[in-house]
């Protein structure tokens, strides 16, 4: 690993206006080396030099899973940020190596479901052409870091989390010490007071904040997670100084790597270690490790941060004095546009700009699925309306982060023509669903058709709006990829003597008020799910106070009225 300073190339002249991390020749060479490594690993596997047991973690750390019908490749979308060029490359892969579509996930990634093992190295090479990869999207290592989909755009943002997410991405990439952890390890970071990154249900959750003198620091949480044992994280630190950012990550990971469970896969996440030793002892061990680390070695220098931050500098925003007024006039003139603006936009930090959410939840559709044609179309719209930039949300939708308010109407019309203007963000049909038994070898039950049935049942827009904000999350098994524990209504597929049954939970949340849902009543068969959700919604509508969301009503009323209603309806 000789390092020759003269080989350092400047980031290639910006071919995109998108504020992605721009690869330099080192990054590109690294990706090529990684593809070469994987190609050789596949060859060794095919030659029998690697057993399947040995090959499995290696392919998983390149995002390659063996599912029910084929290999699935999970491509990393680092912290959910894509350039239009990258999205087009994903569309190209969908067409060339898959069946013409991809599936956006709750980890802000993109999965291809029909990949052939022998073509996988070529797919990785094709990803690398667009500075994309699938490194550490699976396996017992530090996974793709997730963040707020409105990072760098949201009006309520205090610190841009992309800078630190990218630093974490680089730091964790092929980390020599932390690539064979007891279990997977997920880090989420937000830089806004309203947590849109679900930081309390991650192995490490970070809140970037400002100190009294404007300096950046971090609130550090650990030990949250879903899966078999859902737990809300514990706050380790109210404040971590910015220069110690990576030292503290090293300390947490070191403690976990040494002491995390390795006997039982279901007891191997850091949340179990933290729970078993107790929060106080866990914090003590981390702080002890932190105190003995050579902090200078891991110190995050201001110059490094500034160099990374430069990649995320604001795009060339214009001063737009009358954009708000234009938008208000258009909203007043068109009810359908008004519905879309009310539900599918998010306030921007720059006057005259707004973020637009593209729903990947058409009525009756598969949550998070996008065809190659749709990806290309969204990429074109990003070029035209959002400085070449796209975001993936952990709710499986897309975002154009930087749209001029006076161009929003044109964007909406273009989306509408493509069937991508479903105005249902945050409503009862904006459902999270994992791939479930239609694809996944771990699943007990189907998730996608349940989402589709619910979407059809609540198709009426006025009824969706009457019901108001609510999250319905569906997982096909206890591994909880569909985040069912943190849905206001959670639906979990279980296997009951070979039949698909569903356990329903109420009261979950992934936001600042994070909570794990509680089971309401006995599990129901596949055919019964829609009826149960209908009863729960009707009960809420009958009992709610003005302005009260489903979650707020549940918290006030408790489980009893919902349980009674289900019992009466059964």
């Amino acid at each position, binding site marked *: *690993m000789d390092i020759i300073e003269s080989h350092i190339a400047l980031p290639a002249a910006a071919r995109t206006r998108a504020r992605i991390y721009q690869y330099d020749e080192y990054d590109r060479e690294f990706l090529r080396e990684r593809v070469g490594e994987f190609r050789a690993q596949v060859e060794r596997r095919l030659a029998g030099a690697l057993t399947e047991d*040995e090959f499995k973690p290696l392919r998983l750390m390149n995002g390659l899973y063996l599912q029910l019908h084929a290999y699935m490749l999970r491509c990393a979308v680092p912290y959910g940020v894509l350039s239009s060029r990258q999205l087009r490359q994903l569309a190209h892969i969908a067409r060339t190596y898959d069946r013409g579509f991809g599936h956006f996930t709750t980890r802000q990634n993109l999965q291809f479901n029909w990949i052939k093992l022998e073509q996988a190295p070529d797919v990785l090479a094709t990803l690398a052409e667009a500075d994309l990869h699938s490194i550490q999207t699976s396996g017992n290592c530090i996974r793709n870091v997730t963040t707020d989909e409105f990072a760098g755009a949201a009006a309520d943002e205090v610190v841009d989390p992309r800078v630190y997410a990218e630093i974490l991405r*680089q730091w964790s*990439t092929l980390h020599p010490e932390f690539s064979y952890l007891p279990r997977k390890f997920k880090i989420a970071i937000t830089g806004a007071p309203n947590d849109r990154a679900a930081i309390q249900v991650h192995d490490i959750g970070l809140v970037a904040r400002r100190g009294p003198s404007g300096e950046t620091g971090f609130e550090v949480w650990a030990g949250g997670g879903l899966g078999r044992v859902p737990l809300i994280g514990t706050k380790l630190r109210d404040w971590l100084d910015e220069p110690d950012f990576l030292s503290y990550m090293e300390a947490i990971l070191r403690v976990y790597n040494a002491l995390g469970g*390795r006997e039982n896969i279901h007891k191997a996440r850091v949340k179990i270690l933290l729970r078993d030793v107790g929060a106080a002892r866990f914090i003590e061990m981390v702080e002890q490790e932190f105190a003995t680390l050579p902090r200078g070695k891991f110190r995050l220098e201001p110059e490094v941060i500034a160099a990374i931050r430069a990649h995320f500098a604001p795009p060339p925003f214009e001063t737009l004095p009358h954009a708000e007024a234009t938008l208000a006039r258009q909203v007043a003139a068109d009810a359908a546009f008004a519905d879309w603006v009310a539900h599918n936009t998010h306030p921007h930090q720059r006057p005259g700009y707004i973020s637009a959410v593209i729903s990947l939840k058409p009525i009756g559709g598969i949550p998070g699925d996008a065809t190659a044609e749709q990806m290309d179309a969204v990429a074109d719209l990003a070029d035209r309306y959002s400085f070449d930039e796209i975001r993936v949300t952990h709710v499986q939708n897309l975002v154009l982060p930087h749209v001029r308010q006076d161009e929003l109407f044109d964007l909406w019309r273009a989306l509408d023509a493509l069937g991508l203007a479903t105005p249902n963000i945050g409503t009862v049909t904006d459902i999270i669903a994992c791939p479930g038994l239609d694809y996944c070898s771990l699943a007990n039950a189907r998730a996608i058709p349940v989402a589709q049935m619910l979407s059809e049942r609540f198709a009426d827009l006025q009824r969706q709006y009457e019901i108001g904000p609510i999250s319905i999350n569906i997982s096909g098994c206890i591994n909880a990829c569909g985040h069912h524990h943190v849905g206001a209504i959670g639906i979990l597929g279980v296997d009951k003597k070979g039949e698909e049954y569903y356990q329903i939970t109420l009261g979950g949340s992934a936001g600042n008020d994070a909570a794990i849902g509680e089971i309401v009543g006995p599990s129901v068969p596949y055919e019964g799910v829609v009826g149960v959700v209908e009863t729960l919604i009707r009960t809420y509508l009958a009992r709610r106070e003005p302005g009260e969301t489903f979650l707020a009503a549940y918290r006030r009323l408790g489980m009893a009225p919902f349980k009674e209603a289900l019992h009466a309806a059964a």
Partner: protein
Amino acid sequence: MPLLENGRLAEDRFVVVADDAPLPSDAPALIAFARLQREAEALAGRNAALGIQVASATAPEDIAPFLDRVALVVVEFPKFRDGRGFSIGRALRERYGYTGEIRAVGHVLPDQHAFLLRCGFTAVAVPDGADLAPWAAALGRFRVAYQAGMDAATPVSLLRRRMALSRALG
């Protein structure tokens, strides 16, 4: 078992000594860590080099008090998926300043070779008859690293090189 020292085939100068056998007084001897703990006093006067073999569950702080008496720490990898050994190597070097040999034995893959060296290991025992080509290839695979490690060959991380670059450009 062939021994790869920083990627090169090397002679193993240590003699493995069973728990109930006497130690050779004039040759480097490798014993179980538990034996050194048990017989610390009896072994105190020994002049020839001493090596210890530790399980992956061993806490580095338990090894630390003995480090000035040993020239070799052999870390067991019961399964290649058990990554505790990486942290042991790292802690011995970084926290306790140990400068002797650290060797990996057990189930280790060529794909982990570079990680081992970056965590402070000096050698790995590979299975008899193993094809050494993948082991060698693994060391030449990546020219850059994105984070600080223990290997001198990677003086600064990519993050830091960017910093150096921006300085150079003023």
